[in-house]
């Protein structure tokens, strides 16, 4: 009788322990899925090459011996009312190089402790969204970026501001996937399908049987505006469980070239053309895009034209090329 009771107690205890173990196991499985598919991919272990393409203003300052920008000093330096420069992150090393080329050294004031430029500095960095607003409110004279989004153009219209866009160089809009993704090339129509949800599995474009995970950037960023223009007004498809599938992202070529050499990601050919300097310059790559220097048409600062003349001169275009972009007149 006692033995039977002990046996029953033992089996109850075993059942209880089993329930506890199962609870822990279910959670451990959940943590593993979150960790493998998301967390571990977000924890940065970027190399120096990768970091050099993540815009760190302090490493790309003008008039700094340790700066990563292309060094050039023109014979004629601007004097008087200096146009205040700002722009997109990807173009910061470029307009920092323009600053070093033709601005007086004392015009740039950067506080290393706060990581900000002094409000009186002729060089500023607020990135695309805040920088464009600064152009509208007049605190910035010349703004460098890809063509603005429809929302940004609308906000300019509402503010009663007319902007002149001067194309100064070319870049390629590129699509990226993991290097193990068997797809190497897509047509523009397939790319639109992937980002708008018409194509939801990679096998529909000759790839693996995995869901498509189109990755979005923040609204108003240069690459997001370019994608929206590419999609012709259609919204980017969002798959809540997409992170368990295979991703496709987009960026500008400048950001990706060094990173691609390191492995892990690859750039896709579009319509069978790979975006190398030649195909971007001659326009064979279908998603070559211009970037611009923008200024308010009511801005009467005469130095703006002098700056633009320098940028569009042989010296300025060479600076653009050496900085990793393509000349505007190349096609």
């Amino acid at each position, binding site marked *: 009788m006692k033995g039977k009771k002990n046996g029953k107690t033992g089996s109850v*205890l075993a059942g*209880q322990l089993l*329930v*506890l173990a199962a*609870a*822990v196991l279910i*959670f451990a499985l*959940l*943590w593993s899925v*979150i*960790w*493998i*598919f*998301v*967390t*571990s*991919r*977000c*924890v*940065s272990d*970027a190399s120096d090459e*990768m970091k050099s393409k*993540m815009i760190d203003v302090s490493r790309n300052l003008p008039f700094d011996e340790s700066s990563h920008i292309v060094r050039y000093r023109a014979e004629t330096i601007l004097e008087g009312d200096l146009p205040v420069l700002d722009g997109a992150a990807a173009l910061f090393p470029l307009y920092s190089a323009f600053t070093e080329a033709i601005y007086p050294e004392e015009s740039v004031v950067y506080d290393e402790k706060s990581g900000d430029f002094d409000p009186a500095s002729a060089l500023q960095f607020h990135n695309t969204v805040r920088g464009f607003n600064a152009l509208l409110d007049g605190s910035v004279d010349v703004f460098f970026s890809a063509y603005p989004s429809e929302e940004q153009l609308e906000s300019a219209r509402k503010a009663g501001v007319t902007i002149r866009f001067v194309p100064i160089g070319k870049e390629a809009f590129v699509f*990226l*996937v*993991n*290097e*193990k*993704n068997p797809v190497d090339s897509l047509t523009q129509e397939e790319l639109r399908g992937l980002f708008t949800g018409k194509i939801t599995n990679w096998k529909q474009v000759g790839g693996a049987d995995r869901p498509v995970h189109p*990755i979005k*950037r923040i609204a108003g960023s240069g690459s997001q505006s370019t994608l929206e223009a590419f999609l012709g007004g259609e919204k980017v498809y969002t798959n809540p469980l997409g992170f368990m599938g*295979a*991703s*496709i*992202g*987009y*960026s500008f070529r400048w*950001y*990706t070239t060094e*990173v691609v050499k390191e*492995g*892990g*990601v690859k750039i896709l050919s579009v319509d069978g053309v790979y975006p190398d300097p030649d195909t971007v310059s001659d326009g064979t790559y279908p998603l070559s895009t211009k970037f611009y220097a923008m200024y308010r048409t009511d801005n009467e600062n005469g130095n703006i034209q002098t700056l633009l003349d320098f940028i569009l001169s042989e010296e300025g275009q060479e600076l653009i090329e050496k900085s990793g972009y393509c000349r505007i007149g190349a096609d």
Partner: protein
Amino acid sequence: MSEKTFNIILFTLLILCVLITAALIVYTVIQYHYVSIIHFIAKEPW
């Protein structure tokens, strides 16, 4: 183990697991905010 003890242990364990999950999600969201898309794609499991 009595039923009451078992329930207390199970409840505590579940609370602990939920808290760990919440912490992991919060940590992941913070990291995701700062990660570059390129890095995220490069580390995709295949």
